[in-house]
């Protein structure tokens, strides 16, 4: 039977969902199924999956000329989520489903050859877009149901197979009078076995990490192997305040696009901690590719990007970090698309002071030549170092410290961090930023009020140590965080003094 049907579906562009109309036209002619509307390879392969799925669900695949158009035609379509709407469109246009209310529903899902439905990526941004467009009903694979249920304003129905769906459609959704499933966001606290209490000694380092967490600053740890740089860094998520609902949705959306959404955890509660290996490519780090995908820095949005063994990263990989570290987003421009991904992350990096790792060690002798050390340090460029607020030397542990007990647990530190964050939240209510590290020049001038002693100390230090203008601003930001931690309005000389301590790489130049 000849016919036409328009089925609503959706896909992801960048990190946002957008609606796609799947138009199916069946007419007489040489039998063929063609899919048009800028489909990529996965969408074109839908053809064979749909043919098999329809046949194996006990329906006829029409021997007709079938044209499937994905509108709007100018946006590239990717992913396997169009399998289900194409199959439903073909069955409806050929008169095998007689339901009239199909237009009210949005269909998403990948079909297996036997007609079962498989989970697809990017459900959360799609559900949010549907909610914004006032489309209330969504049919999707059962395994994606929890993700869609985060958006409470739409009724999502999870199904297992094409056959099950057609049976439901034929009954005009009578059995679906049951409540659509709704889950509360924030399922349960994610299990985390890490705790700062595990780290013995390193009081100075712990203090620096607390400051870093309180102001969302960038931190570089330098120390010999085995001093606990990695151990300390991995525990920073345990002292960061949990994501707010708005932040959680932003971050979970990015993870959903990549296919990292876990229905066990639901909406992310803990801040992401991304720990890419140093062989990572620049595209994998900042995002991009022919079909642009968010990179590690976007996956670390509202969380922590940890780069262990910093000098081992390819130089050009580190250099691409410069711009997103300042603008807190990354613009991926390709000949076909320009996409902006959010990338508001804290950078924590760890490195050894020299190739052998023992430069400045009290017991071990460093075997590196000055040239080797110079080469090693030169891998990290000045502009990148300039964007780091705190430099922290992590010395090796003393034997007495191994035995240390009563180390402070993460929970206690987290409480102090949250108190400092509360100050910032109040202060930045009207500023559209969340933390001290995000302040721009104007905001620094407005909020970083110094006492006269603090001012003169900073002035002297800047002259003596030849800080750049950016380093000057960063010292002020760290000092502001220190004053927040003590619940003080003005920045005092002691705050400036402590902030200056963390500029050791400006002070001790390893090169000389």
């Amino acid at each position, binding site marked *: 039977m000849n016919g036409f049907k328009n089925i609503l579906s959706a896909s992801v562009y960048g990190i946002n969902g957008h609606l796609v109309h799947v138009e199916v036209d069946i007419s007489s002619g040489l*039998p063929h199924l063609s899919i048009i509307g800028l489909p990529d390879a996965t969408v074109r392969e839908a053809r064979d999956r749909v043919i098999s799925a329809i046949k194996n669900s006990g329906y006829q695949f029409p*021997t007709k000329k079938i044209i499937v158009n994905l509108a709007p035609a100018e946006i590239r379509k990717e992913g396997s989520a169009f399998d289900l709407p194409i199959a439903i469109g073909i069955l409806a246009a050929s008169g095998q489903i007689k339901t009239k209310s199909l237009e009210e529903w949005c269909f998403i899902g990948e079909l297996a050859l036997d007609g079962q439905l498989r989970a697809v990526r990017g459900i959360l941004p799609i559900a949010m877009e549907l909610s914004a467009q006032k489309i209330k009903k969504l049919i999707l694979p059962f395994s994606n149901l929890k993700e869609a249920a985060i958006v409470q304003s739409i009724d999502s129905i999870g199904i297992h197979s094409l056959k099950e769906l057609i049976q439901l459609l034929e009954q005009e959704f009578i059995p679906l009078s049951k409540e659509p499933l709704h889950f509360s966001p924030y399922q349960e606290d994610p299990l985390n076995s890490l705790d700062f209490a595990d780290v013995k000694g390193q009081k100075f380092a712990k203090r620096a990490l607390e400051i870093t967490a309180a102001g969302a600053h960038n931190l570089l740890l330098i120390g010999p192997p085995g001093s606990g740089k990695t151990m300390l860094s991995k525990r920073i998520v345990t002292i960061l305040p949990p994501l707010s609902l708005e932040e959680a949705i932003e971050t979970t959306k990015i993870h959903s696009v990549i296919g990292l959404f876990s229905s066990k955890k639901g909406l992310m509660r803990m801040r992401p901690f991304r720990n890419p290996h140093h062989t990572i490519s620049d595209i994998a780090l900042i995002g991009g590719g022919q079909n642009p995908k968010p990179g590690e820095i976007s996956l670390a949005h509202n969380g922590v990007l940890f780069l262990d063994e910093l000098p081992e990263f390819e130089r050009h990989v580190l250099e691409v970090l410069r711009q997103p570290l300042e603008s807190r987003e990354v613009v991926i421009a390709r000949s076909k698309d320009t996409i902006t991904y959010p990338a508001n992350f804290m950078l924590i990096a760890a490195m050894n002071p020299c190739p052998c790792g023992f430069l400045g060690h009290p017991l071990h002798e460093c075997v590196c030549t000055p040239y080797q050390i110079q080469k090693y340090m030169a891998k990290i460029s000045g502009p990148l170092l300039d964007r780091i607020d705190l430099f922290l030397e992590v010395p090796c542990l003393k034997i007495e410290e191994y035995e240390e007990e009563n180390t402070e647990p993460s929970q206690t530190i987290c409480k102090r961090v949250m108190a400092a964050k509360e100050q910032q939240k109040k202060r930045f209510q009207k500023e559209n930023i969340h933390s001290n590290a995000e302040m721009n020049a104007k905001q620094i001038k407005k909020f970083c009020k110094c006492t006269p002693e603090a001012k003169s100390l900073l002035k002297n230090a800047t002259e003596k140590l030849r800080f750049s203008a950016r380093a000057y601003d960063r010292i002020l930001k760290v000092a502001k965080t220190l004053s927040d931690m003590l619940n003080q309005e003005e920045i005092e000389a002691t705050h400036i003094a402590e902030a200056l301590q963390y500029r050791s790489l400006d002070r001790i130049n390893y090169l000389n």
Partner: protein
Amino acid sequence: MMIKKTTRQIGQEKEKEALHFFEEKGWKLIAKNVLYRTGEIDLILKDQENTIIFVEVKYRSSLSHGVPQLTVLPYKQNRLIKSALTFIKKNKLQGHDFRFDVLALFPAGIEHIPNAFSSAKYSI
């Protein structure tokens, strides 16, 4: 002494067998051995639903070289489609449904493959 049959004779015999197979299904013959510059169509039939079916008949006396239906490769398919388009135009059949079937004959029996192939390259 029995005279060995020519290939042509075998072909005609098998096409007769094929026609018989389809007539038993209730399909009606429209034309057979339609020859154009682009190639020959063995059988053209019409089924109960008025779908016009172009049939390629393939015979193999032994399966030692594989099953006969595998020999209808894209080159042959395109030739058949081109010939079918000529037939449709000459007989003003536009508006009907069309289909290409393959009927494979081997010593052990018959296999009918409905809608064996289609092509996006050509359309009417």
